[in-house]
């Protein structure tokens, strides 16, 4: 182990959160900042010859290498966990920018009541009506506190969209159900595709309130407050799971790195795999990492900021023995609890006319929030408390991935002449109406270290104990009926089978929205970090990211992750650095 020269701040993880903290700290303080990223260096210019569906969309070339490290999963305490041997239900990124390079770009604000969900549900239904197993909590922060930081994050990325609630004034064409915003979006909405325009017209006829998905895929050229200029989207259809070849999709490499590269008090060390946060007497003293050659180093630091993906934030705390691991039997301990994913279900819709669906953008689409939160339905009596958004997006169908999708009954087999003929007939004639619903947190869903399986270094893998409950099945069943109603209005053919009530599935992609494990809150009894994302047990350690979410909201998490990162960074600058020895 080689000891390195001390730095002021060591940041673990070179994705959206780690690099955004670095940008804020290097601009507003004189702290020397070193970011440790275990993946390879990435730059905007790398992406020109990566528009390849096989390697990127199917083999997932940008993702974390599961041969080196993965997670294990079991459905309940009664089961033994097995490794997720290849990526399936979610896609952790790696390299400069992390998952922020291959994301789709959906950039929503959460509903105001999401941040006080426990109080909200208790007030609305009474504690006795809530499921006994429900672990939902308040965040310890409010929408009003986050609003200016949401705006900063929207400006950073240049989000394209249309406001539906401007300082309390409802505006048709935007999301009228959203919390009040002080500003219109930085850039206008993306264009429509044929499919999304049909969805928009159908839901409007049904009396709902469609709005364009707010997207980090720029609708036009935009210069952000840092002076970074990016081009408008080319609708090339190679977005999610790819890096953007023109820089239209906001990614850390095209939005944060151009600024950071000029900063003298910043360094990024790629292929540097942090394996422990080193600490002594309740203070973090630095990080231990291994480089690509397998050499080990100790980097002393006065402040450590853990800013990797949800999985690794939780795992590194557990491996470093910081905090008290959650025990589902006694319900004591906080580290690893409140693991959530996202609740979805799709209705595939088929049209006689071709869609030219090879065109698209990561978050080109139309959606409704008429059923988000607990608006639009009164089914709490039947155990349905929270729902979500219904949408149709056109992010670009490849040649391979969508081949063979056809209405039920079109072919008896899935190979051979009959199948081929039907597959050719239906290619480019289908789209999908999706659901993105809140995933509530439960006592039984959590993360800890696996007792059996290890990573390439021999360290224990992170273990998920996670399954769906009755509430998620009810969310899907409610949403599927709504999707079918919309499909009928669109004049489409569709499969009207009810959604599956199967166990949690690690194979099929759902979303890369994994939350919890190091949740924020008002008390060390019920949370890992305080409302400024400072570790309750270790004042010079911050844990930033979706790991702080006590439960998931309906929308995609990235914008809220960035707003929270601004919030935490501001607290570091104004409250922590003047008194680094104590809790804020």
């Amino acid at each position, binding site marked *: 182990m080689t000891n390195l020269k001390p730095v002021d701040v060591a940041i673990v993880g070179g994705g959206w959160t780690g690099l955004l903290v670095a940008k804020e700290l290097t601009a507003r303080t004189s702290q020397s900042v070193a970011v440790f990223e275990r993946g390879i260096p990435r730059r905007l210019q790398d992406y*020109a*010859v*990566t*528009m*390849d*569906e*096989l*390697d990127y969309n*199917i*083999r997932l*070339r940008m993702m974390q290498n*599961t*041969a080196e490290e*993965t997670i294990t*999963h079991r*459905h309940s305490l009664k089961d033994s966990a*097995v*490794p*997720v*041997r*290849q990526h*399936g239900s979610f896609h952790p990124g790696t390299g400069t920018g992390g998952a922020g390079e291959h994301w789709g770009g959906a950039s929503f604000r959460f509903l105001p009541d999401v941040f006080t969900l426990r109080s909200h549900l208790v007030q609305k239904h009474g504690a006795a009506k809530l499921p006994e197993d429900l672990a939902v909590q308040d965040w310890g922060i409010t929408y009003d506190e986050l609003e200016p930081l949401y705006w900063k994050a929207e400006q950073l990325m240049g989000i394209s969209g249309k406001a539906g609630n401007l300082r309390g004034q409802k505006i048709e064409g935007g999301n009228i159900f959203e919390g009040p915003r002080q500003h219109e979006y930085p850039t206008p909405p993306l*264009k*429509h*595709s*044929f499919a999304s325009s049909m969805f928009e017209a159908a839901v409007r006829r049904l009396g709902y309130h469609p709005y364009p998905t707010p997207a980090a895929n720029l609708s036009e050229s935009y210069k952000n407050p840092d002076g970074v200029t990016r081009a*408008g989207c*080319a*609708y*090339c*259809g*190679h977005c999610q799971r790819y890096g953007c*070849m023109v820089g239209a999709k906001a990614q850390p490499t095209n939005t944060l790195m151009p600024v950071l590269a000029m900063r003298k008090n910043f360094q990024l060390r790629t292929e540097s795999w942090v394996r422990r946060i080193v600490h002594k007497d309740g203070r973090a003293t630095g990080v231990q990492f291994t480089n690509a050659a397998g050499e080990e180093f100790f980097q002393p630091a006065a402040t450590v900021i853990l800013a990797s993906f949800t999985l690794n934030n939780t795992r590194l705390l557990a491996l470093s023995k910081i905090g008290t691991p959650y025990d589902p039997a006694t319900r004591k301990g906080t580290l690893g609890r409140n693991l959530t994913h996202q609740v979805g279900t799709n209705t595939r819709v088929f049209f006689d*006319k*071709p869609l*030219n669906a*090879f*065109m698209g953008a990561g978050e*080109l689409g139309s959606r409704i929030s008429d059923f988000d939160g607990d608006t639009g339905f009164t089914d709490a009596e039947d155990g349905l408390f929270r729902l979500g958004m219904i949408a149709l997006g056109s992010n670009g169908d*490849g*040649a*391979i991935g969508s*081949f063979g999708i056809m209405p039920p009954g079109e072919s008896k087999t*899935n*190979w*051979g*002449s009959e199948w*081929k*003929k039907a597959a*050719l007939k239906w*290619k*480019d004639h289908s789209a999908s109406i999706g659901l993105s619903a809140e995933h509530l947190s439960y006592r039984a869903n959590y993360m800890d270290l696996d007792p*059996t*399986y*290890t990573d390439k270094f021999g360290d224990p893998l992170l273990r998920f104990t996670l399954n769906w409950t009755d509430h998620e099945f009810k969310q899907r069943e409610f949403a599927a009926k709504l999707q079918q109603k919309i499909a009928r209005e669109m004049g489409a053919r569709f499969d009207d089978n009810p959604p599956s009530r*199967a*166990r*949690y599935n*690690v*194979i099929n992609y759902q979303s890369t929205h994994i939350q919890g494990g190091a949740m924020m809150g008002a008390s060390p009894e019920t949370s890992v970090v305080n409302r400024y994302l400072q570790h309750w047990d270790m004042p010079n350690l911050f844990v930033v990211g979706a790991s702080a979410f006590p439960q998931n909201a309906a929308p995609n998490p990235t914008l809220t992750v960035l707003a929270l990162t601004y919030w935490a960074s501001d607290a570091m600058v104004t409250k922590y650095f003047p008194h680094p020895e104590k809790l804020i």
Partner: protein
Amino acid sequence: MKRRQFLTVPAAAIGGTLFYTLAGEPVRAQAQTGTVKVPLRFFTAEEARVVSAACARIFPSDESGPGATEANVVIFIDRQLAGPYGRDKYRYTKPPFVESYPEHGYQAKESPRETYRAGIKTLGDFTSLPPAGQDAKLRSIEKTHFFQLLRTHTIEGMFSDPMHGGNAGLIGWQLIGYPGPQMSYRDEIDKHFGQPWRPKPRSLEQIAGRPGKPWEDEQV
């Protein structure tokens, strides 16, 4: 060192084949004529013949257009198996290997290479069977991991960029009217509503002006 094996690909078979695109327009398939000797990276020549015959039943050349044979799907599969994917370089392969719920996916130890090598043996004297016999043989292994890989790889070989060895002469993309990874549809995305719009397909190399770096060529 093992003597390198070759497969002779009957590229001539498709010169001038007439078929219909999704746009409903008749098109004459563009592909090289003559035969080409392609060096194999993983299969023996005999294995390649068996796999090629099986792919031709999965994605046949018939009245609805050319299939796996004309697209050189077997070359695609050979390269995939020789590269990091075939060797499980990016799959978690630490023991213990245990059976679990179907929701946990493929949990076994065998890499795609090993699955093919053993799977091809189960097909026996496949190339000498008549088409109906070949179909019956494939139906009998439909539920196996080997068949599922073979089916998936056949579709991938039909429709992936030609730098991976399949989709020869962009024949797969011509078949479905897929234009390839074009740089911009900014002026087209909100036009052609309800009408097929089928720009002439181009490969990644033709579009980017320089070759891509297929993952299978990574040093293993």
